[in-house]
């Protein structure tokens, strides 16, 4: 999982509102709200960062312990994959 990378499908549209974000899957009509941490994760996914790199950045930018960051990031990424808002890159 730590080397895994994800990409944002072309049918997903994102709107930032201050330090939060809403995603909309234009194909399925699903919309999804992200708080500031979730928005940062989505941005880093869009930058092509791996799971490990994303957690490194979050650990540097937010005040939380590493285990919590890794668990929360993994849960959010699983949720976004399930809603087809991101998809795994081929290894």
């Amino acid at each position, binding site marked *: 999982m730590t080397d895994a990378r994800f990409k944002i499908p072309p*049918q997903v*549209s994102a*709107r930032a*509102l*201050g330090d*939060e*974000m*809403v995603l*909309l899957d*234009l*194909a399925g*009509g699903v*919309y999804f*709200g*992200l*708080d500031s941490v979730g928005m940062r994760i989505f941005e880093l996914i869009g930058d092509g960062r791996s799971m490990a790199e994303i957690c490194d950045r979050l650990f540097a930018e937010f005040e939380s312990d590493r285990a919590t960051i890794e668990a929360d990031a993994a849960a959010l990424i699983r949720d976004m994959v399930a809603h087809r808002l991101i998809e795994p890159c081929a290894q």
Partner: protein
Amino acid sequence: MTGGLPCRSNKPQPRFEIAPPRVQATLGNAPFRATYLPDGGKSAEFYRDGCAYVLRFPDLADFHISADARQMTGVPAPGVSAATLRHLYRNQALPLAAAHRGALVFHAGAVEIDDGAVAFIGASGRGKSTLVASFGARGFRPLTDDALTLAPCGDDVAATPGDAAIRLWADSRAALGLDNAMADSPLPFTAKARLSDTPWSFCNAPRPLRAAFVLGESAPRVVCGRLTARESLMEWISHALLLDTQDRVLIDAHFARVAALATRTPCYRLDYPRRFAALDQVVATVLSHARGSAP
């Protein structure tokens, strides 16, 4: 701000024609979308007809809408009254056509407060019409009770007048002193009475939208809290009306416009007891937030 200038809708109404009654035949393709009533019954079906659309209200009427939503033909089913066709046109087909032409249209009521308007966002059954009528009875003119169209208005967006009528259940009519108001012809798909002859008038001009209130669940007391822009956008999106939910370019443009709306319009979640005795306090709460005088 509008600088005192009147706001006007820049979206002219489509050309509308009424065809002779016709039995609803099976259409050549499956609907790409359907909507449902609170009781689970089918409300409407959306079909493609080449690049155009057919909006079907089962056993009531078909509306053939051109690809650019500038022309529409209503075809009533045999035995359907002119009043029913008119209601479906004004409250369903026309707002959907406006949305397809770029307007922002929502399941929401709106009333005039001072020099602006406030909106009440909510699904069917959340109490939009009762709340709108409560404001009407207190001297604040309603703009619409169910389908709100927003149009650009200088740096603002304006709430535009909808159908000058309100639909209420019998208990709401009684509680609001509208027992003696003359009800229009009954509509076959609802037990609500449609009232256009009310003791108060309807606002007939667009008004800049000052605030929006999402009508939440029934609660033991009146609670009103400001939503973040993210929460506001998700509420607006979930109550938006769109004709074609598969046109990605159109949906993305709509998403951008709703995001701009959510960013600049204060939006609150309003939970309150669904008791008529609580309406005075609900109205007072809305007024204080809309006027910026809430504690």
